[in-house]
Each structure stands twice: as structure tokens, then as C-alpha cells.
């Protein structure tokens, strides 16, 4: 089943219909669990392939129960076991290959199950969870098919409030319309926008190998690096839009995961608007505890800002590391960590050197924002080189350009993104300035209906053409 395919939508539609047959908690629990297990079943026909995933889920449930039983001495060992088991099952490259399981097994969703399991164990340890978490509720929370593949990472309390409440979330025509709108926008982002952006990047990569001329090479370099973040955004946020829409039809409101991240004027703000639920999880379970522990260890107020810088580095280094199993992700983590920590250090030093008020004024200046937005985009784009390529591809890219061409590429990406993002912000503001019925015309129900219809037509045509047969030769004239 494709991640944002007609198959997924058809499956979700069937689940939504069955789910809404009854509002009883037991029915909703049963249907969601059955749908999630059946969804997993699409990825392998061999029951044995699910054994490691089942074992990890079993470990999570036992850990949760142990914590709820108040056996606090088991807390640290449980966390260590959970992290080691995750690293082992995901086959991180720094572990010897001989240690890994060699039969094929399903790891789909393991990364997000890992976050949910750790959240349950940690919160159970601190007594922040409700006592009555049944196995079915636990499995529904960890395996919920709408959030299994790519999140978002929802907190258990929020999930349980909606899934286990005697009065489920309302599902009237407006809610259904809004949910369908999210699904349509997401479908378009994944199947049209991200598809075409990936074609542009692939073509640029192919042309790098075949074009000897320097000008087109540099242009290819700009496209290869500069298009990827847009592709990733459309692909990832599009999928999240789809699952948010589907979940809402299942009377579950999932947390938002993106909030116009490329409008961010610094890297810290960027990560509060990109993969928001991951950032929040790490803020809660890594950044805050690390900062608190450091401040207890070095209680001087003078070093507190520097401890924040350090905590940012560690947290986002781990974000990078979590994204993949090979050594390139170490560099990815270092770059993310550097982006966050240097931004924090810059904020601390600027406030100190020019004063808080002047710094605030500076950050409010439009021209400053134009360039900091471009810089944020450029740093993210640069970091992503270690996200989408391996060492061999990086070496190929490095060999393809002279040092001054590399400089030209990055300067162009910086200046280009500064201008384009500023224009985008201006156009968006201008479009939203047209009012109708006390609200922006673009947000009116009528405009959105027309807009979504257009997206459906283009999206459906694209998917149908890409899944139908290629054209045959036609003998129109004969």
C-alpha cells in the first residue's frame, strides 16, 4: 500500500465507515485496533516478520505496567533496554552486523512506536499517566494506523481523551468538509508537488553526470540542493495532512506537525514549526531534563545561557542521529546541533552586546528577516545533504564542482531563498488582505471549495496518468 495512494484512501474510507457505525467506546477501540493490525498486515504476509515489532511492543507494555506498579528502580534499566532494543532492531551501522537478526522483519513505524513507548514509561514513572491503560488502549495508541508510518507523535493523554471518552468528538458536515480538505491538500502535496520536485532533483542529478558545461553544472547543483527541502516539506507535510484528515473522521484530533516552517527567521523557530511533535517530544524528554540536570550541576546564572546552548546541541544531534542508521547521520546530527546551538549562542551574545531592546528591534526589521529567513533555509538545505545522500553521492557531488562553484551555489541558494521567501510572504499577505464576509476571501468556504476541487482534479489526473498505461502509438491518420 502506497503511503499516500488511492489504496490508502480507500482503506481509510472503509475504516471510517465501519468505525462510525457505533459511538460505543468498545466498538471504536475494536475497529481502530483491527484496522491498525490489518494495516500492518499489508507490509508482510509472514507472521514471523512481525515478531520483533511485537516483542518491542510487549516490552513497552511490561515497562509501562512496571512503572505504574511503582517499581522505580527499574526505570533507568527499562530506558536503556528500550533504547538498545530500538538501535538493535533498526540495525544502526555502528553495531557489528553479526549481532543483527538476519531474517527479514517489519520495522515500519518502529521509530514512532519507540517515542510513544518511551513517553509512556517516563510519564508512568513520574505519575503523569492515567492508571487504567489496558492492553487494547496501549496497542491502539502505539499502533494507530494513521500515525504509525510518519507520526505525528501524539501524547497518550490527548489520544485517550478522544478515543476513550464516552462522548466522542463531533462529526458534522463542517468537520467532514474540513477533514476532506486536509486530505485533498495532502494528497496534492504528495502526489503532485513532491512528485514534480523529485523529478526536478533527479533530472538535475542525472544532468550532473552528463553535462560537461560549467554553467548548467552550477545550475544543476543549485537545483539538487535547493529543491530537496521543498520536496521533503511537500512529501512529509502532505502525508501528515492526509493522516490528520483521516484521523479526524475517526473522531481523533491529531496534533499539527508543520506550521509554515520556511517562514521562520531563525533555526530555533524553524524547528518549532517543522516536525513540531518531534521537537516537542525532544524538548520534553531530552532538552528540559538535560538543561535542568546541567543547571543543578553548574548552578551559576552566568553559565545558564551556555548550558542552554549545550542542551540544544545534544538534543538536535540526537534528532539527526535518530533519522538514520549510517555514519552520514552523525554529520547530519552535528549540523542540526550546530544550527540550533549557534543560533542560541548568537541570540545570547547579541542581547548582551547590543542590549535586549535593540536586538528585539533588529529582529523585527523586515530586511533583517529577509536575510535570516534565507540563512535558515540555506543551513537546513546544507544539513539535508547528509540526510538524502550517502558518502559515495557526497563524494560525487564534491568531485563535480570546483571550490568557487560550490561557493557560488550556496551564495545563490542563500540570496535566492531570501528573495523568493520574502516574495512568498508578501504575496501571501497581499492575497489574505482581500476580505469577504469579515474574513479573508481565500479562507472563505466557497473559495476553498473551488480550490480543493481544482486540486482534486489535478491530483487525480496525475495519479491516474502515472498509474495507467503509457500511451501506445496511435494511428490517427491512417
Amino acid at each position, binding site marked *: 500500500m502506497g503511503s499516500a495512494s488511492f489504496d490508502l484512501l480507500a482503506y481509510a474510507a472503509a475504516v471510517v465507515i465501519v468505525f462510525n457505525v457505533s459511538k460505543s467506546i468498545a466498538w471504536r477501540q475494536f475497529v481502530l485496533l483491527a484496522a491498525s493490525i490489518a494495516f500492518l498486515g499489508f507490509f508482510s504476509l509472514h507472521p514471523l516478520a512481525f515478531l520483533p515489532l511485537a516483542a518491542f511492543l510487549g516490552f513497552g507494555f511490561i515497562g509501562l505496567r512496571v512503572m505504574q506498579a511503582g517499581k522505580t528502580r527499574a526505570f533507568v534499566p527499562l530506558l536503556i533496554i528500550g533504547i538498545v532494543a530500538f538501535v538493535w532492531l533498526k540495525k544502526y551501522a555502528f553495531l557489528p552486523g553479526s549481532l543483527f537478526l538476519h531474517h527479514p522483519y517489519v520495522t515500519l513505524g518502529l521509530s514512532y512506536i519507540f517515542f510513544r513507548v518511551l513517553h509512556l514509561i517516563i510519564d508512568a514513572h513520574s505519575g503523569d499517566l492515567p492508571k487504567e491503560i489496558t492492553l487494547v488502549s496501549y496497542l491502539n495508541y502505539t499502533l494507530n494506523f494513521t500515525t504509525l508510518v510518519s507520526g505525528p507523535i501524539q501524547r497518550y493523554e490527548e489520544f485517550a481523551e478522544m478515543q476513550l471518552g464516552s462522548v466522542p468528538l463531533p462529526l458534522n458536515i463542517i468537520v467532514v468538509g474540513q477533514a476532506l480538505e486536509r486530505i485533498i491538500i495532502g494528497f496534492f502535496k504528495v502526489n503532485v508537488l513532491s512528485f514534480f520536485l523529485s523529478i526536478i532533483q533527479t533530472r538535475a542529478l542525472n544532468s550532473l553526470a552528463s553535462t560537461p558545461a560549467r554553467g548548467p553544472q552550477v545550475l544543476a547543483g543549485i537545483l539538487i540542493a535547493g529543491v530537496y527541502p521543498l520536496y521533503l516539506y511537500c512529501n512529509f507535510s502532505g502525508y501528515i495532512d492526509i493522516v490528520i484528515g483521516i484521523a479526524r473522521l475517526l473522531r481523533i484530533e491529531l496534533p499539527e506537525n508543520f506550521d509554515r516552517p520556511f517562514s521562520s527567521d531563525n533555526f530555533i523557530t524553524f524547528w518549532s514549526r517543522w516536525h513540531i511533535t518531534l521537537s516537542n517530544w525532544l524538548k520534553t524528554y531530552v532538552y528540559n531534563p538535560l538543561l535542568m540536570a546541567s543547571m543543578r550541576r553548574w548552578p551559576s546564572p552566568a553559565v545558564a545561557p551556555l548550558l542552554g546552548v549545550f542542551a540544544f546541541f545534544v538534543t538536535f544531534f540526537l534528532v539527526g542521529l535518530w533519522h538514520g542508521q549510517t555514519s552520514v547521520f552523525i554529520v547530519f546530527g552535528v549540523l542540526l546541533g550546530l544550527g540550533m546551538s549557534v543560533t542560541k549562542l548568537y541570540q545570547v551574545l547579541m542581547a548582551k552586546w547590543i542590549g535586549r531592546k535593540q536586538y528585539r528591534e533588529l529582529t523585527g526589521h523586515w530586511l533583517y528577516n529577509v536575510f535570516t529567513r534565507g540563512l535558515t533555509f540555506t543551513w537546513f538545505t546544507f544539513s539535508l545533504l547528509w540526510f538524502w545522500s550517502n558518502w559515495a553521492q557526497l563524494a560525487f557531488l564534491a568531485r563535480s564542482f570546483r571550490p568557487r562553484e560550490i561557493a557560488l551555489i550556496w551564495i545563490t541558494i542563500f540570496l535566492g531563498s531570501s528573495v523568493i521567501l520574502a516574495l512568498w510572504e508578501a504575496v501571501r499577505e497581499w492575497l489574505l488582505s482581500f476580505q469577504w464576509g469579515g474574513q479573508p476571501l481565500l479562507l472563505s468556504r466557497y473559495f476553498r471549495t473551488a480550490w480543493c*476541487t481544482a486540486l482534486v482534479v489535478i491530483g487525480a489526473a496525475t495519479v491516474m496518468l502515472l498509474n495507467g498505461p503509457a*500511451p501506445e502509438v496511435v494511428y490517427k491518420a491512417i
Partner: protein
Amino acid sequence: MSKRERNLAARSPTCQTARLPKRDYILLPLISLLTILVMFGVSEVLTRMVWTEQEVDPCSVRDDMGNHHKANCTVRMKNAEAQWVTYHYNECGYRSATSCGTKPPGSARIATLGASVSMGLYIPYEEAYFSLTSSELSRICNRIVDVQNVEGTGPINVYRKLQEVLALKPDVVLYLVSPFDLEQQIDPKELAERDNPARTPTKTAAKPTLSPMKWLERTLTESRTVLVYQRFLFQNTDIFLRLYMTYGDNADLFRQPLTPAWQRRFAHFDLIIGDMAAKLRAAGVPLVIIAVPSRPEAALLSSKQLPPNVDPFAFGRQIEMIASRQGAGYVDLVEAFSHISNSENLFYVVNGHVTPEGQIVIAKNIVQKLQDGSVPAFSHCALSQSAPEEH
């Protein structure tokens, strides 16, 4: 109201209280419908203005012998992907600049057979392979070489043109065959009655009964917007090949071993070529079969990673075996195209025909073949002479 319910109400207040005005139950679907109509209308008008097409051919006639063209008829036509082309048919209804009458003393004559590729569909006369071949051979051989373009459609139809061809007294007959010429299975009854066209009445297209779904399908297929979108998508060879290879029967031509359906097609083709070669041999006219690749085949030829069990040379090999078995000459354009990088660019993306650039490759290889000594009329022409330049 419980705390939870208050939370829920706070989370989505509009959803809790708002109601859709009654007029919106009519307005919103109407807006959707109107959007679709405007989108299709505007895009169709714009694409039809930019990618003009005029493929109604008043010169074309269909009868018991299949398709042919009216004598001394001229028509100007355009495919959406190609340029405007003037097609002139001589007194025999062949797309030839010269007369089909008795050939002038000292001149040589080539008769070409085949379907759309053979007649240079979508190609201006002077850029078509037969025109290039004619002028190049005339130059090299220092004598007039005239080409009579006797078109056909499928193999049976081509076979039935043989008497016409023999009446032209050609020095050689070239039969250009593409994979899509063989895709349609030959009706065994028609094959058995290939010498009696009157006994196999022309299949006239039945008036289609248009169900709504059929109408929609036809509208989309005929849509210029869809064509332009297809052209945009299928310029990407990876996408094009991925889709083509999921095609089933047509793509099975390139899968090894050949399916029974393709074995049957080649067996029927073998039978027809056998008869053609025998008749031509009796008349002392050499037959040369030319395997012209299709765009998917060319894309496979330039693909860096072929799908398992896929052999882009399979078509050429089969045709070569048939030609060799039946004592006909053979020009392997599949092999020739395989030496050109990204040779799929020598085809129109959607209509799939060979472009003017591809015509040069075809002409070059035909000229080379005709000088190898197997065709007496051209055996005196020096091999060292240059052929048309490939761009």
C-alpha cells in the same frame, strides 16, 4: 459540561456550534462542478491553441484492400506534437514526389511497405527517411533513385499490396516493421484468406454506443490537456518505462522467454514474410526487412538498469531470424539506435513516431545496407561514400 467536553469545545468551537447554511448544500456542489468545467474548458482551449492538431485526412480511403490514398491528392495535416506537414499522393496514391509510372531508363526504384513509420507520418517529405535515402543513393550511385511509398497497415494489409508493388517493377522492396505493427493479433481466418481479400470483408468501425463512463473515457483520451500533460510526464524516461512495463501483453515483447501470444504473432509474421519473399524472389526483386524500434524499446536500450528478464534486442532478433529464414535482407535499426545515447528522444513522446532526427538514423542504415552487395541495383555504389550525417 465536563472538563473533557469543555476541552473539546475549546479545541474546535466552530465544529461544535456552526451549521452549514442551507444554501451551501446547493452552492458548494455547484462551485465544484463549475470549477471542473472552467478548468477543463480553459485548459482545453489553451492547449488546443498551442498544440494544434488537424488529423482529418480527406485523401484517405478504406476498402477491401485496406487503407490507401486517393490519386493526386494533397492534404495538410498536423499532429499536436509535430509540425504542419503537407502530404501529397501521386497518381497511384503513394506518398512520392515522383510518378509511379514506368521508371526512367537508367534509374533505380525502391518500393517501401509498412505502416505509419513507413509512410513518414508527421514528417515533412524532404525530411522523411525515404526522401533522404533517395537523394543520398542518387548522389552515391550517380543515378536517379526513386522511392514509391506503398503504405499499408498491418502485415496482412501489407501483403495484399504486393501485386501493386510488383507492378512498379522496383529494384528492391523495403518493409519497415515496428513492434506496434505486430501488437494486434492477426485473425487466423484473415490469415488463411490473405490472398482473397474479398472473402474477408473490411472491418467497419461499429457506431459506438456511448455509456457515460465510455463518454468520459473518450473525452479524456481525446483531451488535448491530457495529451500535453502526458507529454510532460512521459518525457521522463523512468516514469514512461515504469508504466510501459506494467503494460502486460505489449511489454511482454521485451520479456524473455516470449509469451505464447508473442510467439503466435511472430509465427504469423513469419508465414506472411515467407509468402512475400517467395513472390518477390520469383519476380527477381530482393526484399529487405527493417526492424524499427519503438520509443519504449529505445528507452530500454538507453536504460542503465534493465528490469529482470527484459531484453530490448528481442524484437530485432526475432525479425532478423525471420528475415534470415525467408531469405530476405535485414536492417537492424534496434542495434543502430542502441549506439545512440538517449535514443528515446528520437521519438515523439505521446504519438510514439520517429522524429525528423530519427529519420536520419533510419536513412543512414538503409543506405549502408543497400550498398552491401545484396541488392544488385546498388551493388556498384561505393561503400566508402558518406551516408547522411547523424545530428
